[in-house]
């Protein structure tokens, strides 16, 4: 285990160093991931300012959701980049995944160490900035429980998206190419939770409650942090379900190992 962790750190630093080799490209790419978020949030902010909010949510409150989701997804996209389905599909297709299987190291650690997209720091930085603005502007009444719960919520979101990446990567064992459905799940759910769930029609809300239960990871916790009136209508445990997502990640890992076994029995 210790050996695996040390090795993961080495592999990660290799990835970072190779990206730093092309300094200009790295700086530009990092900036561009930030600019994308800035433009996107900027336009949302303009619209919300014009109409004074949406369904009773102020710009600052939407920023809370937005910053939380972008930060968590950014970190995930950086650290789980090896599992990014299109990237991983390439490894399977080109046979480089076989090279990893030929090494005496845990395969999950190797896939995570095979890619580390440092340029996501741009997106992360902006996500953090938006979140900081939200915390500032909302005048949240901080209690010890809220303070303790915030990192848990963030980490759960991070793991949740990581699990989706792992599932998507595993599916490429069957499809070789990554499938569009997975993008709807990953990017789709990260986009959806940028905004309050009340703005969506019922079926979308149900989808993200029962099928991909991301509503428990951002919307309900946000109600709790912001002391929103919707909290009264929600089940009292709803904001505190986010750590349960850990089980989801375990299922994703089970599926991943199942996929590897099936890959070994069929090849490509």
């Amino acid at each position, binding site marked *: 285990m210790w050996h695996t962790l040390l090795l993961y750190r080495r592999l990660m630093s290799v990835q970072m160093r190779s990206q730093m080799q092309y300094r200009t490209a790295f700086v530009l790419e990092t900036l561009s991931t930030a600019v994308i978020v800035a433009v996107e949030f900027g336009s949302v902010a303009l619209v919300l300012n014009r109409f004074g909010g949406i369904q009773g949510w102020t710009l600052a409150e939407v920023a809370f959701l937005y910053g939380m989701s972008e930060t968590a997804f950014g970190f995930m996209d950086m650290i789980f980049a090896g599992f990014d389905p299109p990237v991983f599909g390439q490894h399977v297709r080109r*046979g480089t995944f076989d090279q990893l299987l030929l090494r005496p190291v845990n395969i999950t650690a190797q896939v995570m160490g095979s890619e580390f997209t440092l340029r996501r720091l741009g997106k992360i930085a902006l996500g953090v900035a938006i979140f900081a603005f939200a915390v500032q502007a909302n005048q949240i009444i901080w209690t010890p429980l809220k303070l303790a719960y915030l990192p848990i919520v963030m980490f759960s979101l991070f793991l949740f998206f990581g699990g989706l990446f792992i599932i998507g990567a595993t599916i490429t064992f069957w499809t070789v190419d990554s499938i569009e459905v997975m993008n709807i799940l990953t990017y789709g759910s990260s986009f959806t939770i940028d905004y309050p769930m009340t703005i969506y029609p019922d079926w979308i809300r149900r989808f993200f409650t029962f099928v991909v239960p991301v509503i428990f990871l951002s919307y309900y916790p946000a109600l709790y942090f912001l002391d929103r009136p919707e909290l009264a209508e929600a089940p009292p445990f709803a904001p505190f379900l986010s750590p349960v997502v850990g089980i989801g990640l375990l299922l994703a890992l089970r599926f991943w190992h199942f996929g590897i076994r099936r890959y070994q029995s069929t090849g490509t």
Partner: protein
Amino acid sequence: MSIITVRNLRKEFKVSKHHRGMMGTLRNLTTREFTLVKAVDNIDFTIARGELVGYLGPNGAGKSTTIKMLTGLLTPTGGEVVVNGRVPHQQRQLYVQRIGAVFGQRTTLWWDLPVIESLELLRHIYRVPPDRYRQNLHEFTSLLEMESFLNTPVRSLSLGQRMRADICAALLHDPDLLFLDEPTIGLDVVAKERIREFVRHINSARGVTILLTTHDMADVERLCSRVMIIDHGRLLYDGRLQTLQDRFGGKRELVVDFAEPYPEVTVPGATLTHYHDLRATYEFERQTISASELIGLLSTQYRIRDLSVREPDIEGTIRRIYQEGLLTGDA
């Protein structure tokens, strides 16, 4: 003592049938029809420690499927594989610690890193003790003449340099067994020769067992005393290269330069194929007459200035075996 034991090894793939046309597309969606492809069909062999064996066969014969099963990348459909005392696909992590593998078509090194850093990383991956690592690195880099490009990123290496670096990388952890899949593909003559010499060295001096797949018959001739030939998933031949050559090699040739012109130069046991300007070429078969008998016969009748014997090339023999299915009857 055998290091590889393979018994009744089978690997079947399901390949889904594709129908053409619009109706065909509909059928592809609604029904799942499969054809069973037997990539490896009941093969048996053992390889002893320290052997250097050539594994030959045309493309799609089942070579890489076999190698993938031997390296633990694929689970067999049936039969038994035991390599180095382990079942490769069941004990992957433990098993791969003791083997090395080079796939000529792709690299195991990190594209953007200098060669030496990739090797250093592999030292950590395989947990090679620092002293042992230094010793091996020193030996391999000097034998493979790698010093000049140790600090070059892998992406800037020539194919020959990259291949040498990959071979070095596969051996740093002192594997008992090395799989070489087309290690000379695409290289020039000098680079090929350097790699062959190195392969021979680690086999003889270090006792590393080597299984070599290649399409280059010169590799086989220089390196392997034993060859295995696979085609359509079945092992057609397992034995000495020379035996194969004796049985299926084409005719040998004797070229004679006479000291003076003779009107008639035929000789029993050999066919005169060419005679012009004092030089005659005869074809003869090993089974009918030996080269010395033939030369003896000729020299009693004519004055000979010079002569040479040409052996049939192995390339041609193997090509005939694949094309004409020479071995299919008696596997």
